[in-house]
């Protein structure tokens, strides 16, 4: 049982290491999905939000982690 729990925990850790990074990525995807599905924004706008959002999230997380450490 302990082995199974350890394996499941590791599987979750595959995708979530720093929780704030995971949440920020999901937020970016959520905003892009809102633009695409609800507001019917142009594909270019959705693509730019997705790409730019991911870049911004990565930079912010790195800087915050380095300062914290």
């Amino acid at each position, binding site marked *: 049982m302990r*082995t199974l729990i350890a*394996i499941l925990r590791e599987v979750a850790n595959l995708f979530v290491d720093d929780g704030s990074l995971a949440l920020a990525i999901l937020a970016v995807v959520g905003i892009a999905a809102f633009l695409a*599905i609800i507001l019917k924004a142009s594909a*270019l706008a*959705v693509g730019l939000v997705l*790409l730019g959002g991911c870049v911004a999230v990565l930079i912010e997380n*790195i*800087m915050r982690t380095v300062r914290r450490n």
Partner: protein
Amino acid sequence: MVSWATAAPAVTSAFLASLVEVVEAFTIVLAVSTIRGYRPAILGSLAGLVLLGLLVIVLGPMLNRVPLDVLQIVIGVLLLLFGMRWLRTAILRAAGAVPLRDEQLKFDQATANLKDDARAHQARLDWLAGITAFKAVVLEGLEVVFIVIAIGAGRGLLIPASLGALAAFVLVLIAGIAVRRPLARVPENTLKFGVGLMLTAFGVFWTGEGLGVNWPGSDLAILGFAIVFLLIAVGSVAFARRLVPEIAK
């Protein structure tokens, strides 16, 4: 017919990502075989490989039943979570903010843990050693399975991506049997850096396609995204190094 421009990033990413994971699993399996001999190490590893094979056989056909746009979004988001996690770790390690992974240290830790178990559970030690090898193969193998499925599903690239992963497995096995030591000289962080870039690029591409974005240049956009993230990552490393001057020295 899958074009080389489409298959090359998938095969390369699957190969390099699998190389990292197989090296990590090999370190643990080697520790097991050093302490308790080849039998529990091989049996535990084989049991892990069988479980992984069953997962692929069960999950693989199920993917064909999922609508393509849903599959693209789900896999794209998982790739973003996975790829950006690797990229973040690689950047922080390259900047000196987080220590590099040391295969020799991992081997020593696994060996010490098994020795502790030997003192506490002498009678069950072969079983514990086998479970340790099994866990290592399953955990690292799950990452390989995910990467292969994520990169290959939806574009008919499952076989090329699988071949990339298989090549990594064979390469590590040959090198490991030859040297019989932890493969500490594999540039793990450089590999993680490159694979994190590619997986993140794949993640942006798939998520966008799932949301109806027709990326300019089609599949070539993946390389464009990888270049964007490479520039951002290199800039982040340089900037972060200035914030960690004592380590950079």
